């Protein structure tokens, strides 16, 4: 088995439909619609929206494929690096623990998708999350995946949990709360390993934080995730703080989302 497994070769059955980022951005219906959001206008995800349930189903499918890629990414970190020379054993053990968590998240999200009335393959899969976990530097990989992407997962799960609460769906709310607890743990792992592995290497720390920004920017979805009242995915300060983000770092992500939104509407 090779080290570093390319994103385009991720193994999938026939139900999965892969969509590249270019395809999504060049979709004549607009990137947002192509991503499964059936409206051109941004609005907070609530059951009262005419397209609220459809958007929630699309988001749940997105969570499911995201969880598969997160499982694959954490698994590859167990395999791709040598213990001692490249990473400590404890880091790999954290990644193995994350594999188990992500496997449970796959089980939860595929069950919830069915519960919400959608099925595997109804929406396309984008491989961007796994691509971020192909970085050959373990510090950059962990920062991009565990801080940027798992950070986004905190925002997404909290939004879905609130949606479940508003919709009077205790199953959805219950499951999202459990997954949210795991995500805070994963982001904290990323924050802790970033600090430990770059303790005496400012240059590597800066590179890792820059990579995190690139990933965060990619996943800002034209301002899709932010702190404004009509942001579909709400940036979650409280849980990000628990996971080791500073106020300044959270402010920076909020600003990034605001800029992305302004650019998209300009």
């Amino acid at each position: 088995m090779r080290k570093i497994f390319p994103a385009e070769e991720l193994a999938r059955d026939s139900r999965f439909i892969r969509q590249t980022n270019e395809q999504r951005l060049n979709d004549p219906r607009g990137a947002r619609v192509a991503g499964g959001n059936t409206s051109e206008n941004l609005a907070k995800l609530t059951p009262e929206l005419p397209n609220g349930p459809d958007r929630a189903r699309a988001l749940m499918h997105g969570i499911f494929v995201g969880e598969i890629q997160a499982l694959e990414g954490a698994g590859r970190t167990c395999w791709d690096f040598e213990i001692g020379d490249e990473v400590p054993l404890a880091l790999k053990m954290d990644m193995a623990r994350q594999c188990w968590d992500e496997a449970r998240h796959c089980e939860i999200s595929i069950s919830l998708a069915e519960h919400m009335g959608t099925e595997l393959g109804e929406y396309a899969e984008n491989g961007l999350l796994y691509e971020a976990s192909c970085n050959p530097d373990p510090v950059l990989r962990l920062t991009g995946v565990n801080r940027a992407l798992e950070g986004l997962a905190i925002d997404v799960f909290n939004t879905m949990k609130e949606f479940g609460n508003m919709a009077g769906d205790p199953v959805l709310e219950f499951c999202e709360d459990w997954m949210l607890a795991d995500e805070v743990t994963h982001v904290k792992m990323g924050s802790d390993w970033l600090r430990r592995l770059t303790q005496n290497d400012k240059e590597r720390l800066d590179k890792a934080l820059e990579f995190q920004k690139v990933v965060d920017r990619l996943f800002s979805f034209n301002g899709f995730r932010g702190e404004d009242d009509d942001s579909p995915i709400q940036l979650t300060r409280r849980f990000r703080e628990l996971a080791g983000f500073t106020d300044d770092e959270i402010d920076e992500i909020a600003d990034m989302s605001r800029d992305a939104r302004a650019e998209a509407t300009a």
Partner: protein
Amino acid sequence: MTDIKRPREPFAPWDRRSLPGLFDVDETARRVGHYKWVEIKLFEALGGWVATIPELDVKMRLGTHCYHHAWHADLFDKRLPELREMKTERLTVPPNEHMVEFIEAMTEPEAGHMTIEKLVGVYRVLIPHKIAAYTYHRNGTSEITDMPTIRILDFILQDEFNDWREGEMLIQSMIESPEEVERAMVHQTKLEKIMLAAGGIAGPGSIGDPYVEVVEQN
């Protein structure tokens, strides 16, 4: 009223644990180091394979099992300093070059159509050998002096049995033709031969020696 001065035996009548064991401290540490090495190699492989497996149920199950073996490695890692090995990496080694060869052969399959080979290597060869070696150790070591290792092995064996059963069921569900039976057997035979040369996961003597030495009389 209870007579608190009435003497009792130090061991209750039902407690039949015995003091002697097959392994001294050094031998126990050597074996535990090999077990840890194998558990690390296994969890790394299971994690790496997840991305290469198209079958969704297998993909998710391997993600779960990956953690089980990482946890086993952690348990063995924590036991080593208690066996006087403070530099745990020193004993985290394969028993011989055949075991290295075994892991290389087991982790060789990568292509998406080779799920049967991946599962056979783990669930029909490696895990049964682990269960055998851990059971031998668990049953042979001193039930009093080495109880911490027995406790660890009991937890681990519970996982191994469950994972073996799930893995075997996945293999049975994947095999749908005589050709696939053949594929599974060919791969199992290839790996078993290497394991035979290795002498088991802890080297020769992994499960003891069942034969009696007969002295020829003239």
